[in-house]
């Protein structure tokens, strides 16, 4: 292993410009990938903030006894999708309307009877806030006898869904494209290194080196370049993040774990690309 590492590092010393170029290109490819991940990450955070506001409101028939409502709350809370159920009495509804709809102050004062119905506000657990689950819960709630109406922002929830899908697909496609670019760059650099070192490989063969022995330093070389490229990408992403979060708006950055994942991704890509490249080009040298 010591020898493999020495031979791998030798390639940096022998071709510093080519190595630096490879690392930079890999770094930039992973940087674009990282940027999209950052955008996706922040978008997801924002979406989940919005999603938290998704709730189903169940309006109750006037005069539904409190005992019946209490039993119903227990039943609804037992739904696997439900996080919390909040009971809003008719009086509370009126009080809330008075506070929130200040411009209709006069209308409320003229009221002789409370026109607002009591309701149950139902919040769903994370992961169940998509249109499919929300509709399913709403349907089930409509089955209660004392229900006057069940409402949730159907259009709004569906749009949210679509936005999430689009963000996911775009992120995946762009991420895959740039990961593929990184793979090709690494494969090409390793190919150039294999060709540049063909004389040495030939000599290694003459003195009885096995194919595995010859291959190992190239693969380690690719992995090191991939890892350094990944590291560069994280640094570039951090720079961009600082720029954006200072000048434009509050954004969040990768956790240490996510940043390590990018470096790991670079390493794995480098390893795989060089293994394939060496496998293809070594027999021809």
């Amino acid at each position, binding site marked *: 292993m010591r020898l493999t590492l020495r031979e791998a590092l030798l390639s940096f010393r022998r071709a510093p410009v080519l190595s630096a170029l490879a690392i930079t290109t890999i770094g930039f490819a992973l940087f674009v990938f990282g940027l999209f991940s950052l955008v996706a990450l922040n978008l997801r955070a924002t979406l989940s903030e919005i999603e938290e506001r998704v709730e189903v409101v169940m309006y109750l028939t006037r005069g539904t006894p409190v005992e019946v409502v209490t039993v119903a709350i227990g039943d609804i809370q037992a739904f696997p999708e439900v996080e919390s159920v909040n009971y809003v009495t008719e009086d509370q509804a009126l009080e809330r309307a008075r506070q929130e709809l200040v411009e209709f102050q006069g209308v409320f004062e003229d009221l002789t009877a409370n026109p607002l119905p009591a309701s149950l506000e139902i919040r769903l657990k994370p992961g169940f806030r998509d249109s499919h689950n929300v509709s399913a819960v709403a349907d089930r709630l409509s089955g209660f006898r004392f229900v006057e109406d069940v409402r949730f922002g159907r259009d709004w929830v569906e749009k949210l869904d679509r936005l999430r899908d689009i963000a996911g697909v775009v992120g995946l496609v762009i991420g895959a494209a740039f990961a593929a670019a990184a793979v090709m760059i690494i494969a090409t650099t390793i190919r150039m290194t294999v060709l540049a070192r063909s004389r040495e490989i030939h000599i290694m063969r*003459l*003195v*009885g080196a096995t194919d595995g022995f010859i291959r190992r330093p190239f693969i380690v070389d690719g992995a090191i370049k991939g890892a350094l490229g990944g590291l560069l990408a994280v640094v570039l992403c951090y720079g961009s993040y600082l720029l954006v979060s200072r000048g434009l708006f509050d954004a969040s950055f990768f956790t240490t774990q996510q940043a390590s994942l990018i470096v790991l991704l670079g390493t794995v890509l480098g390893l795989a690309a060089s293994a394939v490249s060496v496998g293809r080009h070594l027999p021809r040298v």
Partner: protein
Amino acid sequence: MPSAPCEAVIRLNKVFKAFPKGSLALKDVSLHVAKGEFIFLTGHSGAGKSTVLRLVYADQLPTSGTVRVSGYSTAGLKRRDIPRLRRRLGIVFQDFRLLEDRTAEENVAFALEVTGTRRSVISAKVTRVLTQVGLATKANQYPRELSGGEQQRVAIARALVNDPLVLLADEPTGNLDERATRGVFQLLKDINATGTAVVLATHDLDLVRQAPFRTVELQDGAIVYDSREDEPAGEALVER
């Protein structure tokens, strides 16, 4: 000259080798090299000397016939056997084939490192062979700092460091002046005296005349003369 031993380390049996375009590089070549033997392989450029050596170190495979080297046969030779086969051989070329960015010592050590030899053993072995080829004092010099003769000595040291059964030398003096040629040839004779078989491919007849070793001559890919089977060496060759 070592006594003629009978155990063969290299056996070529009815070997034909065709070029990709179809013409023959070797025609019906049968050649046995005994343990500890010294053989001159002579002939003009293109006669097939290098092809014989390439078949021996399994850089090429015969089109028909078999090549056996120290227990390995080209019939059924697997790719993974080739490195093991080569570790039993030492190979030297006209153009030395040294790694330019490594010192003489590192070039020699490299041959041991690739075979997974322990570090503690490498240093002692490298010093021993560099002393044997007369380069102990130049161990830390790079190939470009050495003369042609010295570079070839480093290449020979590298070939020797694995204690090969046979040393294959393909025109090892082709790039050297007369004095360096004599030195390298003497070194090859000394190596042979310690029991290592030497196959020396050369078109330099002056060199061949300097020692009464077995001489095999190739012409257009066929053996046309073998001093062991034909007339005593030296005289016959002078006539040709």
